[in-house]
C-alpha cells in the first residue's frame, strides 16, 4: 500500500459519522458518501439548508451528540482529511481485482450521473428502514410510516395533516408522536400493540440501562404535556376512507395478540403514522458477499464483516438506535485505521464503546421481544387487502400461491404472484408476505441497491465487475 490509506464510508448517520471521525483522526483519508444533502442520517435529519431554521434542535433529541459529530466532520473536511459526497446515492459496492473496493453512486438532480469511489476499506453504515405490516385501508393516502412522518417533519418542516393517530409498535412511536404534537398536530391517540410495562418485568436488563429508563420517562412526560392519549395493547384494525384517510378503527388486544370482542372504536383522523419496527438495509453487504445473521449483517468484535476490507456498523448490523450506532461506528473506525496501517488494533482503546455496545445490544434484544408485532396480525388481513403496494397483489393471491400452488419460499411466491417484483423490490411487502405464508423471511439478495439508468451501467469501464 502506498500513500495514505483510503476508507469509503457509506451513510452519514450516527454510525457512519462516528466511524468516519474515528478513522480520519487516525490518519485515514475518508470519503463519506451519503444520499442526503446534509449529514445526519434519519436520526439527525436536519431541515433543508434553504429553510434556514434557527432552532432545528426543537425537533431533536441528543442535540449535543449531533453538534459534536457535525463539528468533527466540518473540521476533518476543512483540514482535508475527509471528503463528504452529499447527494450521492450508492447503488453498488464491489471488490476489485487488486483487493481494492469500489463504491458506485449516482448523483445529480435526476440521479443519472455515475460516480465511482475506490478505497482500501469500506464501512457500511447504511442504516435501516421501517417495517409496516398491512391492514385494510393501509394504502390510503394519509397513511404514512411513522418514520416517514418524522422525516418529512424534520427535513421539510411539514406536517402530514391536522389530526394524527400514531400506531404500531416500537420505541420509535414515542418521538414521532411527541414530535408531531410539538409541531402543532393534534395527536388523537398513540396506539401501541405491545404493553411497554412488559419491559419493567425485565428488571435486570432495565437496571443496567438507567439512560433508557430516563428517556422513557421523559417521553411519558411529553405525552402528558401534549395530552396524547396512549392506548397500550391496542391495534389499528382498519383505516377508513375512499380517496384519502378519514379515520381508523382501533381495538384492544388480548395476551395472545387477538382483538378483544366489543372493544373496537373509531377515531377520526386525516393521518395515520404507522410502523412495526425496523429492518436493516443490507443490499450493499449482500452484493459484496457478506454473511448475514438473520436479516442483519454479521460482524465480529471489531465490526468486521467476513469479507476482507468490509466493515459494518449501526442498524445494518441489527436494529438498536443511535447510541448503539455511535458506539459501533467508533469501534469500526478505530479498527479500520489500525488495520489499514498494518497494525493489530488494541480493543482496550475502545473499551468504553464496547461496554456501551454490549449493554445496548442486550437492551434491544429484550425490547425486541416486547415490541414484536401482535401474534394475530396476519389473521386480520382479509383476502382483498393489497399487500404488495407496488404490484397491487392481494393477501388472497399470496395465500393462494402457497395454498393452491405450493410455494414454499418468498422467491417462489414472488414469481407466482409478482409480490415483491415492483419498484421497491419487496422492501415493503416481504415481511408481510412471510408472515401471511409462513415462508421464512430472508434478505432479498438484490444486485443493485437502487434503480440505475442503463446509461450509467453502459458507461462503466470494461474491467469493472471482475472478481478476484
Amino acid at each position, binding site marked *: 500500500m502506498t500513500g495514505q490509506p483510503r476508507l469509503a464510508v457509506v451513510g452519514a448517520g450516527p454510525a457512519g459519522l462516528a466511524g468516519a471521525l474515528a478513522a480520519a483522526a487516525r490518519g485515514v483519508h475518508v470519503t463519506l458518501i451519503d444520499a442526503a444533502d446534509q449529514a445526519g442520517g434519519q436520526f439527525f435529519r436536519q431541515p433543508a439548508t*434553504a429553510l434556514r431554521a434557527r432552532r432545528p434542535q426543537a425537533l431533536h433529541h441528543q442535540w449535543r451528540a449531533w453538534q459534536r459529530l457535525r463539528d468533527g466532520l466540518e473540521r476533518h473536511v476543512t483540514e482535508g482529511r475527509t471528503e463528504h459526497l452529499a447527494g450521492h446515492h450508492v447503488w453498488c459496492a464491489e471488490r476489485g481485482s487488486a483487493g481494492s473496493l469500489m463504491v458506485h453512486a449516482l448523483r445529480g438532480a435526476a440521479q443519472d450521473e455515475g460516480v465511482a469511489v475506490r478505497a482500501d476499506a469500506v464501512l457500511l453504515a447504511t442504516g435501516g*428502514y421501517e417495517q409496516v405490516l398491512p391492514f385494510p385501508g393501509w394504502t390510503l393516502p394519509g397513511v404514512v410510516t411513522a418514520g*416517514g412522518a418524522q422525516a418529512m417533519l424534520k427535513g421539510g418542516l411539514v*406536517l402530514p395533516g391536522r389530526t394524527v393517530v400514531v400506531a404500531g409498535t416500537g420505541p420509535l412511536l414515542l418521538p414521532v408522536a411527541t414530535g408531531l404534537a410539538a409541531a402543532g398536530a393534534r395527536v388523537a391517540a398513540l396506539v401501541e400493540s405491545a404493553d411497554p410495562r412488559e419491559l419493567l418485568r425485565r428488571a435486570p436488563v432495565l437496571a443496567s440501562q438507567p439512560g433508557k429508563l430516563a428517556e422513557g420517562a421523559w417521553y411519558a412526560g411529553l405525552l402528558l404535556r401534549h395530552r396524547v392519549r396512549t392506548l397500550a395493547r391496542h391495534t389499528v384494525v382498519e383505516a377508513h376512507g375512499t380517496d384519502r384517510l378519514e379515520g381508523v378503527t382501533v381495538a384492544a388486544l388480548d395476551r395472545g395478540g387477538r382483538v378483544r370482542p366489543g372493544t373496537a372504536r373509531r377515531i377520526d383522523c386525516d393521518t395515520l403514522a404507522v410502523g412495526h419496527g425496523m429492518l436493516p438495509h443490507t443490499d450493499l453487504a449482500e452484493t459484496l458477499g457478506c454473511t448475514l445473521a438473520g436479516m442483519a449483517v454479521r460482524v465480529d468484535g471489531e465490526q468486521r464483516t467476513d469479507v476482507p476490507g468490509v466493515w459494518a456498523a449501526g442498524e445494518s448490523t441489527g436494529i438498536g438506535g443511535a447510541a448503539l450506532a455511535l458506539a459501533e461506528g467508533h469501534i469500526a473506525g478505530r479498527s479500520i485505521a489500525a488495520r489499514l496501517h498494518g497494525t493489530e488494533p488494541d480493543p482496550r482503546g475502545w473499551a468504553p464503546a464496547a461496554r456501551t455496545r454490549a449493554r445496548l445490544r442486550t437492551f434491544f434484544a429484550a425490547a425486541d421481544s416486547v415490541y414484536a408485532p401482535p401474534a394475530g396480525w396476519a389473521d386480520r388481513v382479509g383476502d382483498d387487502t393489497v399487500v404488495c403496494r407496488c404490484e397491487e397483489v392481494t393477501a388472497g393471491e399470496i395465500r393462494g400461491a402457497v395454498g393452491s400452488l405450493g410455494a414454499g419460499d418468498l422467491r417462489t411466491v414472488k414469481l407466482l404472484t409478482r409480490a415483491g417484483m415492483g419498484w421497491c423490490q419487496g422492501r415493503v411487502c416481504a415481511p408481510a408476505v412471510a408472515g401471511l405464508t409462513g415462508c421464512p423471511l430472508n434478505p432479498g439478495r438484490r444486485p443493485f441497491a437502487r434503480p440505475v439508468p442503463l446509461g450509467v451501467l453502459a458507461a462503466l469501464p470494461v474491467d469493472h465487475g471482475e472478481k478476484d
Partner: protein
Amino acid sequence: MNPLELADARPGPAFTVTFDGRAVDALPGQTVAAALWTAGVTAWRSTRGSGRPRGVFCGIGVCFDCLVTVNGVPNQRACLVPVRPGDVIRAQEGTGGTND
C-alpha cells in the same frame, strides 16, 4: 405553532410551481412532497392496476409510492426531489409512460 415556527425557520420567499395546472406555493429547500403536503395535497399518483390514489408512504425513498412527474420526467420520488421555481408537477397515472 407550526413546524416552521417551532424550528424558527426563516426561508427565502415562497415561489410558485404548478400541480396539474394549479398554482401552488413552495418554499426553497422543500421536496416536491413537502410542497404538496403544505398545499393540502396528499395524493398524486394513481396505481397501474386499479387506479387507486397514492402519495407519500415511507418518506425516505424506500417505497416508491410517491412517484410523480416533474417537468415531463415520470417516476420521480416526490419525497426526495427538491422543488424548484417554475416546476411543472403532474400527477402520475400508471407507469407514467405515454402509452398507458
